[in-house]
């Protein structure tokens, strides 16, 4: 009870009604999300400059995804999709959800601590799973060395996720959105330290005590530690006090059933990930880092537009689902889909046209050579069309979880993975080894197309009319606009611009083609009077004005 009063008196929460409106919440978060995405991307670029796109970067990248993967398997998916809705509901408890929250934190952190220990012990095993060094193009030992240093991140990922879930349930979004920025800054500092550390990482044999390995590994883990520590002041401000509470809440059982399916989701998606990484590491050095960076670039627009929309829309949807208010649920879904289409399809067009220029412009300097950077850009160009399907899959996922249906997303993931695996091996067989990464990202996007179609169909079976016609119409118009924009930019590139050969030509291409494609695509949307553009543009103008 006390915590609730404190929350009402909290100045941040006092300026609106109890539940902040969608636009307001997502607007304030968008800036933070944007900054965190940009800095997050910044350190990856910096890494490519300082380390190069090579075996070192590959090894670090793979090792750095391991704690993420294990955290996801242990808790991640469950947290994002189940704990927040349950936390929201627990606030109607007589104690304002304090006991439930403590229990969750105790049980969750204990489980994670055990999981972390096991994961660190099993690091060589994990490496051999994700890295196929049989062709001699990857270095499993180096991955293992990094993994020992990076796997303890699991615990802090978990802490961060649990704490931000608690804050989100109280409609406190700020600190959770800003903390990753701090993490990114720590990693930037780490990379600088890495660059000034003397010596070379010896590949044969890999030595754990190598100062460069230690700097990179420990610094990166430190970033996550700092990130979760950032949330503690905010928690104290909402009046939350942690107490060990090992009891079992009956709602955790409900959570248990859901969690099993979500765990299945994560595991199935990891099967896809394992295959992807093995195909990449077997094909060519630099593949894993190109994949990771291209995927990051791919997610960047979604991250800024999609996530800020989703994080705000999720509590609304779970509320609508809890009230069995299907109309509202469908409405949120439809609005989300249409806004995503209008925003993301033109961006896909821009990425398709300027892909290789982006790759070279961002990565083609320092230790990375132009060919690898261009390959990265090509990979982006070939997969950019998947941006909207990806956003739709994420949105549908939230709808399923809001309806407390964790089974269907898992089944959809199974179908996506079943489609993905043969196509991945087809990449390895059909395409030249150094180009495999491009094909892998293409396949990735295609599986999202499958996922989006599948998700929409099953939601339709479940909920009835989804205003699909409206959504499809908006998508069609957006695609038309995107194609027009892309063609215009491509034409200009052919007629007036030099080929992308170096950093300078890449920037010239990017600076000319990007805005042309963007302006023309959105211009077509404006000319066709697409109504969805209005909330989207007003949000952007508001952001710009604020920035």
């Amino acid at each position, binding site marked *: 009870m006390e915590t609730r009063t404190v929350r009402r008196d909290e100045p941040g929460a006092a300026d609106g009604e109890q539940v902040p409106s969608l636009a307001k919440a997502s607007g304030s978060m968008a800036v933070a999300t944007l900054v965190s995405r940009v800095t997050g991307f910044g350190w990856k670029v910096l890494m490519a400059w300082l380390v190069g796109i090579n*075996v070192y970067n590959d090894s670090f990248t793979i090792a750095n995804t391991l704690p993420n993967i294990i955290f996801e398997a242990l808790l991640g998916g469950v947290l994002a999709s189940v704990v927040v809705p349950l936390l929201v509901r627990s606030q109607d408890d007589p104690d304002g959800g304090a006991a439930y929250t403590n229990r969750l934190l105790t049980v969750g952190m204990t489980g994670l601590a055990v999981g972390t220990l096991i994961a660190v012990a099993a690091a060589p095993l994990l490496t051999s799973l994700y890295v196929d060094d049989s062709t*001699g*193009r990857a*270095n499993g030992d180096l991955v293992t060395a990094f993994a020992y240093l990076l796997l303890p991140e699991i615990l802090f990922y978990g802490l961060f996720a649990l704490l931000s879930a608690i804050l989100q349930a109280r409609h406190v979004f700020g600190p959770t959105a800003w903390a990753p920025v701090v993490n990114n800054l720590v990693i930037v500092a780490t990379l600088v330290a890495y660059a000034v550390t003397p010596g*070379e990482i010896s*590949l*044969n044999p890999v030595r754990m005590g190598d100062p460069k390995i230690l700097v990179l590994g420990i610094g990166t883990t430190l970033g996550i530690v700092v990130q979760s520590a950032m949330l503690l002041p905010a928690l104290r401000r909402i009046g939350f006090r942690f107490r060990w509470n090992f009891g079992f809440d009956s709602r955790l059982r409900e959570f248990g059933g859901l969690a099993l399916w979500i765990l299945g989701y994560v595991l199935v998606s990891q099967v896809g990930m394992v295959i992807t990484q093995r195909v990449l590491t077997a094909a060519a*050095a630099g593949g894993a880092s190109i994949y990771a960076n291209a995927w990051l670039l791919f997610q960047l627009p979604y991250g800024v537009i999609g996530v800020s929309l989703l994080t705000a829309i999720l509590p609304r949807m779970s509320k609508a689902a809890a009230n*069995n*208010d*299907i*109309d509202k649920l469908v409405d949120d879904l439809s609005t989300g889909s249409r806004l995503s289409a209008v925003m993301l399809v033109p961006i896909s067009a821009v990425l398709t046209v300027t892909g290789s220029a982006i790759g070279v412009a961002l990565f083609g300097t320092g230790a990375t*050579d*132009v060919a690898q950077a261009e390959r990265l850009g*090509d990979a982006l160009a*070939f997969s950019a069309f998947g941006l909207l399907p990806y956003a739709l899959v994420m949105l549908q996922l939230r709808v399923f979880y809001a309806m407390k249906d964790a089974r269907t997303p898992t089944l959809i993931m199974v*179908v996506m993975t079943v*489609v993905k695996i043969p*196509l991945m091996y*087809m*990449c390895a067989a*059909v*395409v*030249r*080894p*150094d*180009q495999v990464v*491009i*094909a892998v990202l*293409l*396949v990735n996007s*295609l*599986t999202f*197309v*499958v996922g989006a*179609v*599948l998700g929409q*169909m*099953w939601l*339709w*079976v479940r909920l*009835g*009319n*989804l205003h699909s016609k409206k959504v499809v119409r908006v998508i069609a118009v957006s695609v038309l606009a995107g194609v027009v924009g892309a063609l215009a930019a491509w034409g200009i590139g052919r007629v007036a611009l030099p080929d992308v050969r170096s950093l300078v030509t890449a920037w010239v291409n990017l600076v000319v083609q990007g805005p042309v494609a963007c302006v023309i695509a959105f211009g077509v949307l404006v000319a066709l009077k697409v109504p969805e553009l209005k909330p989207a543009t007003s949000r952007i103008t508001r952001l710009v004005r604020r920035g």
Partner: protein
Amino acid sequence: MTTRRTEYPMGEGAAGQRPGTLVPGGVVGDGRYRLLAEFGLDERVDAHLWRGQDNQLRRDVALTLLVGDPANATAANGARRVLERTMHAARITHPGTSRVLDVLGPGNGIGRDEGLLGIVVADWSQGTDLVDLIAEHPLPPATAARLLEPLAAAVELAHHSGMVLGVDHPQRIRVTPDGTLRLSFPGPLPEATLQDDVRGLGAILYLLLTGRWPLRNAPALPHAPLAPDGQVVPPRALFGYIPYELSSAAVRSLADDATGGIRTSAGLLRVLERAKQNEDATQAIAAIPPDDDEGVEDDDGTVWTTRRPANDRAKRRKLAIGVTVLAVATVGVLAWVGMELISFFGDSSPTSGGPTVVATAPGSAGGNSGSAAPKPPQPGTPIQAAGVEVFNTKGTPDNPRKANRAVDGDQKTSWKTDKYQQPFPALKPGVGIMASFAESVPFAEVVIDSPSSGTVVEVRTAPSEKPALEETKVIGRATLQAGQTKLQLDTAEPTQHLLVWITTLGDGNVSELTEIGFVRAQ
């Protein structure tokens, strides 16, 4: 959403507040009727709906028990009015309404101390509760229309004679084994109007279609969601598959205002008949196979629970699977096209299949070739290197793990030098690949496949696998062209180790060797 009879103990508890009355096994009507099970409660007149047994005729009856204090004049008047209206309506004989067997009032079949103001006794209808029928799923629209039609017809018949039937409460309605709705607990409210009956029919239609009750009088059922204007939302907005006509009929019958509303049961009846005919047509076309999640069969085993209320969903499911398969197939084709595209773009960069350039051996290559050069050897058969390593004299070796890619016979793989800031010999004098052979053989040719034109390569013999550069001897030199370059060697002196040494890098201070072939002398 599920409202089952088992959830009613609340109602029984409320009845228990009046001691001695309305518990299963109890008797009412001066001991004539034994109470078996409660089936509902119409709170508006405190009418408890029970299944009972006629102790004399030994048959089941439906009892509508009007509970109240006889001293309360308003309640007593209301109850009397209910009984009167029921007696009038009892003249109607129709499958849509249970036959009224008896109407009992205080002093007229009911004991003074029973706490009852009246009892309506009607034939017991076998079958299921309406509430149970829709508890699992809403019904398919056509089924809903067919179920409701006889009840609407009964209402219509009653209205012809100016009588109110009182069908505005869901728990008073039961589903008969032959698949119709029947008013099983008759007893119109004191002030019910003809319009109320029509509204009741609309509400039942709404309930059948959506599983929610749009009127305020049945708190046990989930209430229909309201639009912002305070009206219930049309069924079609909840389930898109509901035909517009039925959806609108349900809403229009509920509407209070005269504009656009359905005011007579005849109007509603016509809509139902049309909907039923539509369904007959579609059923003749496609029989829907049973779907699995509908497994609970009511213990009454009536026709209706074994039907598939969700056959519309099954249809959609089929369509969904079809569309998904189509999407997967399309994606497969797109993936293939995409990869061809990638290969196409990839091939545009020159890596293989360039022109073959023959670099004749320079007469006296290398200053340190002290011995007199014999005649150039004649090329014989190609020989495979036993092992290759990157040969490096200064700094870190360039891509040491990939050296074997230059001799793996695969045009798609290559070994590459690092990318240097400045041309050799700024950082190191050069970099190369040391090939070792199983035995000492005389060499005639080295064939190098490379995209890096401008690269200058020396071929040197070496005394061991890791010699100093000074210990090696130049036996050939060439500037590579994009594609294949043949280096003819100027000595056939047998050697076990051969070094391919890059002294000048290609464009961008990087060189790539796709394939190196060694040809022994005859």
